[in-house]
């Protein structure tokens, strides 16, 4: 009872959010908590659990593809595996992961606020998310079979197939609300709850990236929600929106689907770019190069990224005008991403670089995301895309962008912020070993996809021609290396939460954003007093004092 009295007396100050005992205790104290930090951790548990399922399915897909004919399962099971792998990884892992886990936990602290604008809605989003995620998992085991359409749900097949489509579509529909509400919450928080003195250009770049992402989430997520609802209506009532036998238009579905799902790529990648923009200056111990250009390029990506959806449809026989415009804009959307990459690289120049685990992941992000982005440019060219679309080339591209980008961004964020969140440090040596295994496994697994694609291997194929086998075997071996690395990484992080060396200092890495000024782990209210902000987030004034001292000498 003593701790409770303490809690009540000082209104939650000086008590770690982990130890805090409020109205509810134990598990309920977490499940009913509206503390943004606890919700962030609830999300982390959810996302990482779903990630484990997604990885398992991916592992099984690769195992199946070891031989050209059936290896471990039949074609129907294989089709369900790659569909659910895609749905899990896209909709309940990489879309929510960085905003919902690290955005929730750190955005308010970075802005100098005590919580997000709508804490109860924040908790609601987690429940919507978990309900949707559990529905997707249930679809795997319920009679009728999991969705077997690919994560893109293309009609007419998604209207005709006999599997549990309605179940899966409803799940994605529900998760959409979670995403929209989180976006709204962050937008309001960023607009209204910045600490005194923190003008827009004193915000950390992670906050900027969440701001751009939130706008995309709020604007385009309703489109996919309504589109999937229309597929359900089509399946149940046969009204003829998309179904060609009833006069519907299958291409209408593709347009509406990609109107969301292309910007969704930016919902996926931009927050990870924000993480990288935090980590690079901290581990270079200098101010970031081109702050405003990085900030504005996030908005540039949000705007242009919403106007390029039909580049997924170059082979559908659209009008020449559409092909022209969408190809042109696709090339242009590469520019803001390129600007970020150049600025990050320039931030290393004359820094004082420490190659800790978060920095290794951040540098790997730049390398892998560059490959992902550049292979995207290759497919922006119309005549080349007509050859490469729907082959393994695009599968390689999406994995380099989404896994090499957001996945490595997530791993960087975990190694960067987890010690702050729990007050315990992981084994740094093991973390670096795990990094190299993950990095090598990743490239052995996904690089052969580009070669397979160029050779003409179609995606989503259970069976393949014998000339492709060599590269499939290499990729499958890569998947074993990758999974080994992931296991070492995750075990290292999990063990650190219980047995890791305790950290008491506030600033573990020498960062200058506000989360490094609060205690480790943060207190319930984050700040005893709302701080006043005078400087930008990456000033590193000690560098200037040092050079001034040198001049004096």
């Amino acid at each position, binding site marked *: 009872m003593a701790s409770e009295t303490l809690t009540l007396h000082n209104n939650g100050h000086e008590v770690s959010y982990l130890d805090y005992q409020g109205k509810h205790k134990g598990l309920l104290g977490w499940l009913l908590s509206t503390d943004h930090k606890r919700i962030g951790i609830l999300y982390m548990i959810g996302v990482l659990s779903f990630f484990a399922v997604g990885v398992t399915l991916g592992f099984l897909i690769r195992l199946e593809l070891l031989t050209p004919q059936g290896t471990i399962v039949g074609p129907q099971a294989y089709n369900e595996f790659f569909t659910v792998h895609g749905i899990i990884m896209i909709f309940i892992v990489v879309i929510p992961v960085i905003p919902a886990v690290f955005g929730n936990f750190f955005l308010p602290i970075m802005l100098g606020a005590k919580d997000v604008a709508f804490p109860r809605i924040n908790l609601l989003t987690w429940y919507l998310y978990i309900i949707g995620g559990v529905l997707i998992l249930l679809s795997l085991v319920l009679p009728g079979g999991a969705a077997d359409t690919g994560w893109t749900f293309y009609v007419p097949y998604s209207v005709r197939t006999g599997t549990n489509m309605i179940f899966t579509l409803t799940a994605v529909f529900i998760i959409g609300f979670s995403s929209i509400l989180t976006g709204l919450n962050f937008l309001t928080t960023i607009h209204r709850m910045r600490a005194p003195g923190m003008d827009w250009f004193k915000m950390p770049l992670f906050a900027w990236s969440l701001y751009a992402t939130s706008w995309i989430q709020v604007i385009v997520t309703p489109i996919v929600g309504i589109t999937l609802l229309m597929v359900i209506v089509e399946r149940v009532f046969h009204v003829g929106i998309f179904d060609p036998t009833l006069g519907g238009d*299958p291409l209408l579905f593709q347009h509406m689907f990609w109107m969301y799902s292309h910007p969704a790529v930016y919902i996926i990648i931009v927050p990870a770019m924000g993480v990288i923009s935090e980590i690079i200056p901290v581990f270079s111990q200098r101010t970031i190069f081109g702050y405003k250009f990085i900030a504005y390029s996030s908005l540039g990506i949000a705007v242009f990224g919403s106007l390029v959806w039909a580049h997924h449809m170059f082979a559908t026989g659209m009008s020449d005008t559409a092909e022209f415009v969408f190809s042109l804009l696709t090339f242009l959307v590469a520019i803001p991403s390129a600007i970020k990459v150049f600025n990050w690289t320039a931030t290393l120049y004359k*820094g004082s670089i420490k190659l800790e685990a978060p920095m290794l992941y951040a540098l790997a992000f730049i390398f892998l995301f560059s*490959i992902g982005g550049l292979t995207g440019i290759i497919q922006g060219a119309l005549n080349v895309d*007509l050859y490469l679309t729907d082959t393994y080339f695009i599968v390689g591209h999406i994995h380099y962008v989404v896994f090499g980008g957001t996945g490595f961004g997530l791993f960087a964020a975990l190694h960067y912020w987890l010690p702050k969140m729990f007050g315990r440090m992981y084994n740094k040596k093991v973390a670096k070993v795990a990094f190299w295994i993950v990095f090598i496994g990743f490239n052995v697994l996904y690089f052969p996809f580009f070669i397979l694609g160029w*050779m003409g291997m*179609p995606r*989503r194929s259970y069976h*393949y021609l014998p000339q492709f086998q060599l590269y499939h075997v290499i990729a499958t071996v890569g998947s074993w290396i990758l999974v080994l690395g992931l296991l070492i990484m995750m075990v290292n992080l999990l063990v650190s939460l219980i047995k890791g060396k305790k950290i008491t200092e506030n600033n573990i890495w020498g960062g200058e954003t506000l989360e490094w000024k609060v205690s480790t782990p943060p207190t319930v209210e984050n700040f005893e007093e709302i701080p006043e902000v005078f400087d930008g987030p990456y000033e590193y004034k000690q560098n200037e004092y040092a*050079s001034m001292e040198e001049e004096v000498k």
Partner: protein
Amino acid sequence: MFADASNFVLPVDNTFIFIVIICVFFLVLITGMMITFVIKYNSKKNKKAKNIHGSVPLEITWTVIPTILVMVMFYFGWTGYKSMTDAPKDSMAVDVYAQMWSWSYKYANGVESDTLFVPLNKPVKVLLHSRDVDHSFYVPAFRIKKDVIPNRTNTEWFLPTRVGSYDVLCAEYCGLRHSYMYSTVVVLPEDQYNKWIADKQAQDNDAATP
């Protein structure tokens, strides 16, 4: 790998190689700089960092140069695409029917087959019809692919430039046996093609009138 089986192989491969060269250049540039800086400015050697807030001339440079380069890439892609959409007037038309999970072909004189036979060096225009769901007509050796969508007739043309037989694959996922949806396109010298289609027609007529 496939030595010039159609007129589109060279332009597609050239555009691809042109873009890949530029991409590799930038990847090596960025990775090289990253590695160089990490070694040169390692905290062990370089104790004190220097603050550089940015440089507008540099920002302009690395915005304008990539923009120009991607516009050139766009131009090659677009012109390549235009040449693929505008079929010559004298093209031989063939109807292609896709269904779960097979291909069939119907020629102007009514002959039908499961394998696509085409004459060498004659432009062929395929009219793509789906009997059920979305498919995609994909001939890797010809560098062509076009979706086959129900209630919509997409077209595609090519000029076969080498005798031989090439795989036809379905590139748009279409259910259980999508990955088994193979067919073959056989390019024959013109006289052999004419003989094949005449024989086939005669056979069909015999079968029709017992």
